[in-house]
């Protein structure tokens, strides 16, 4: 089966410890490794895991991944105001910025050359069950916008993670959060 080479997907996610930044990236590569020839996931965080800065660089590609560092992502997910200050400028002109509008106001963006997708993700997550699944709402939105991976694949990648196995009931909640983000219309 001759497969067409897919476009390389590069994503940067930034927030603080405990928001699930790294988990989002992890789900992407778990699902992505079934579809793309190569994937990479690079975490960067402060010494203190709780409340410290966290950034995750994700690449899905059919080509060899030369560098796992993504300097100019086409998509950027921002989960808090400090991350906005630190990372907004790296987004490529014409790129897409996905923000949790409950945490960061769209006015903070201050860039005209990008598309801003504001998702009230924390509120949506809370209305499903808990703000702990805010990351999945945002991930759902990213999947819809980028078409990087099918929703079902990412949803099933969650079943492979040990946290999900531990809490069976949580799995459906997680998948609900992912779908909510995916189906959220601005």
């Amino acid at each position: 089966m001759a497969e067409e080479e897919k476009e390389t997907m590069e994503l940067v996610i930034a927030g603080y410890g405990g928001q699930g930044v790294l988990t989002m990236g992890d789900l992407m590569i778990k699902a992505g490794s079934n579809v793309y020839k190569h994937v990479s996931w690079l975490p960067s965080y402060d010494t203190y895991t709780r409340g410290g800065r966290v950034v995750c660089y994700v690449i899905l590609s059919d080509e060899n991944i030369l560098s796992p560092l993504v300097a100019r992502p086409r998509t950027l997910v921002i989960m808090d105001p400090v991350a906005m200050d630190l990372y907004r400028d790296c987004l490529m002109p014409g790129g897409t910025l996905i923000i949790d509008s409950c945490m960061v106001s769209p006015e903070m963006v201050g860039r005209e050359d990008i598309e801003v997708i504001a998702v009230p993700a924390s509120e949506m997550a809370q209305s499903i069950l808990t703000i702990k699944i805010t990351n999945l709402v945002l991930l759902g939105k990213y999947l819809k916008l980028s078409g990087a991976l099918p929703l079902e694949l990412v949803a099933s990648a969650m079943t492979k993670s040990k946290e999900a196995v531990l809490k069976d009931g949580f799995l459906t909640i997680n998948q609900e959060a992912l779908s909510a983000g995916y189906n959220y219309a601005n």
Partner: protein
Amino acid sequence: MSGEDERKLICDTPDCINNTLLPTCPGCLHGVVARCVCEAIDDLGIQENAIGVVGVGCHAMTAGAVEVDTISTAHGRAPGVATGIKRAYYGEAIVFTFQGDGDLGAIGLGDVLNAVNRGEKLTTIFFNNAGYGNTGGQMGPTTIEGQVTTTSPYGRDPAQSGFPLHMAEMMASLRGCAYSARVGINNLKNYAGARKAVKAAFQKQMDNIGYGFVEFLCTCPPGWKKKPDEAFHWMEKAMMEEYQLGEFKNVDEIT
């Protein structure tokens, strides 16, 4: 409800504390230890001569709250550095170390044993939280039998990794030690005892008698993978059962 003016202040901020926001986790007792040390320093009026020496671990962060000169050292090496400072001021400085169980009981055990054995006039505040907090909840020398940690995933097995280390008792057995106690800060009564113990340990140094050692039983909710309240109860139950509180040595002369 009674009016504002009828309230009586029973407890104020110690003079010796600076209100740095500590980056410790919710439910961590390390900050309370720092406060207790501040109160003891206030009680004894030794702030101007006190110098803090800290090891490596979360306990080191709490030194930021104590408004004295401080120095940070390599992992486990505080007693040696403290000796240098003490000797540099020909004994006039009041030097104390902040050390965790990994820092003091594992990597730095040799250092502290030798400092105590030399009969150094120093005071060590020992934070026992039954494991390594800072590096993410690995087994430490004070991890109790059967306790699951990230490096004892099947529970601490004495056949493989030995026994919980009782530092306060061990220190008491050394001839250079003038004071050794294990204290809790889980309630007001114990807290008052802890404050007294820290004062006594400092007093041995001030009176030029010998080494003073106070072991605090602490918590580490994320390291133990427990919620703050669960961690607190586990400390009261499991840790206090293994580690009896008490004074193990209090002498006016080392011989």
